[in-house]
């Protein structure tokens, strides 16, 4: 069974077709890098995968549970970092993570363990009792990641998780994702292409709401070899999506 399964997702905003028939399957152990230019429809696709936005057509399921027919079961198995890492600014990091954990049904004993693990793995010690409103962008993002991981979900959907992180943090985040990846299905949207090469086992590129590439990073690069020269992922990304936009 695929942990993430989406087929034919379509979403139209007034006249703009933001997502135009996106299908995606992610199995356990895979880390999918979800790439595309600004406005390609990455965030909109993720909102439909998580059941937040209802698609005009198509279906999505998480761990075998349809996100609309059986939303509670699907959401239980899902950790989601929405774009911009929204959080309750008036709460402290500790209170906010505890709130999300409890809303996810964790008992106090388990919650305590998970909070301790998050402090360490996502590096939140310095800001643990600070209100989220007072945090820097990078720390806010980390709180968002901790929130998505708090219940140790099988499926992770992270919309630009490393946006705003410093190089050390980016490195730590990649290590964290690599460490947890074997038991999970992970979808990450990003504009940082080294990241994709470092942690993703597969790349899905979308442009104007359609999937234009779906392959392993090395297969993608091999396919684009010119004169025996392997191009960079950036070159491939630009040649695939740049011509579309023109």
């Amino acid at each position, binding site marked *: 069974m695929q942990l993430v399964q989406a087929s034919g997702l379509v979403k139209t905003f007034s006249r703009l077709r933001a997502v135009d028939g996106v299908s995606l399957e992610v199995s356990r152990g895979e880390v999918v890098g979800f790439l595309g230019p600004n406005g390609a429809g990455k965030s909109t696709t993720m909102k439909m995968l998580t059941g*937040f936005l209802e698609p005009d057509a198509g279906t999505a399921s998480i761990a075998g549970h349809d996100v609309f027919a059986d939303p*509670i079961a699907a959401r239980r198995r899902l950790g989601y970092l929405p774009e*911009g890492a929204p959080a309750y*600014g*008036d709460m402290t990091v500790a209170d906010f993570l505890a709130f999300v954990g409890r*809303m*996810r*049904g964790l008992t106090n004993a388990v919650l305590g363990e998970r909070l301790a693990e998050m402090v360490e793995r996502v590096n939140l010690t310095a800001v643990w009792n600070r209100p989220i409103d007072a945090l820097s962008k990078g720390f806010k993002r980390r709180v968002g990641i901790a929130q998505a991981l708090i219940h140790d979900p099988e499926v992770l959907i992270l919309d630009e998780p490393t946006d705003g992180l410093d190089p050390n943090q980016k490195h730590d985040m990649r290590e964290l994702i690599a460490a947890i990846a074997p038991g999970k299905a992970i979808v990450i949207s990003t504009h940082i292409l080294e990241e994709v090469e470092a942690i993703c086992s597969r790349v899905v590129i979308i442009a104007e709401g359609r999937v234009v590439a779906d392959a392993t990073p090395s297969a993608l690069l091999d396919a684009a070899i010119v004169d025996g020269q392997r191009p960079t992922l950036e070159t491939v990304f630009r040649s695939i999506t740049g011509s579309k936009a023109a």
Partner: protein
Amino acid sequence: MKTSFRTIGLVFGREFRAYFATPLAAVFLLVFLALSAGLAFFAGGFFERGQADLGPFFAWHPWLFLILMPAIGMRLWADERRSGVIELLMTLPVRAHEVVIGKFLAGWAFTAVALVLTMSFWLVTLYLGSPDNGIVIASYIGSFLMAGAFLAISACISAMTKNQVIAFILAAIVSFLLVMSGTNLVLAALRGWAPAFLVDLVQSLSFITNFDRLTRGVLEAPAVILFVSTIVLALWINVQVIDAKKAV
């Protein structure tokens, strides 16, 4: 309808604490106390009447609440939309009605705090004379129910926008119409052309008329039913709005 009371409790706790996270709560409680005392004493003729009752104090509540309840309710949902937290909240394994109820109860509990603080006036009248405590208790219950109805309407309207100011203004307008619907001004305007049953309906929906009945000391069923069913209806619409329009 499956309901997790744990979720309602968690949302309630978060929202109730959020009211006190800023100095706004203290400001609000002070304004409420000052206004309700000021209006009762100076505009309501509390002293001139020479009798120890809280009638003039309660008489102002419909007018106070039509401003204050939208102020309490406006942030409940509009702020979630503005900040994007709604996306986080509605992808947690919770049902929309649990969140709607939890948020409403938090605002209502905050209102209860405000009302409890005004009980100091009751102590004053007890000191000055012997008020009819039955009437006072019935009035407090009526006031609390009416506040709940205004609040549920405000929360529901707050769910429709991401702008708190718009939420406040629209909720105040709707509340104003509900207060005014029992006044002679509105009824006279209607009587000219509307069929009698419509005039009666509008009059029977009036928050002022129904609240007046309660402050006379009788916990009349129709008045209680009006306020309770307004709460239920507004919260039901609130759930539909959230379910239908999660993203902005």
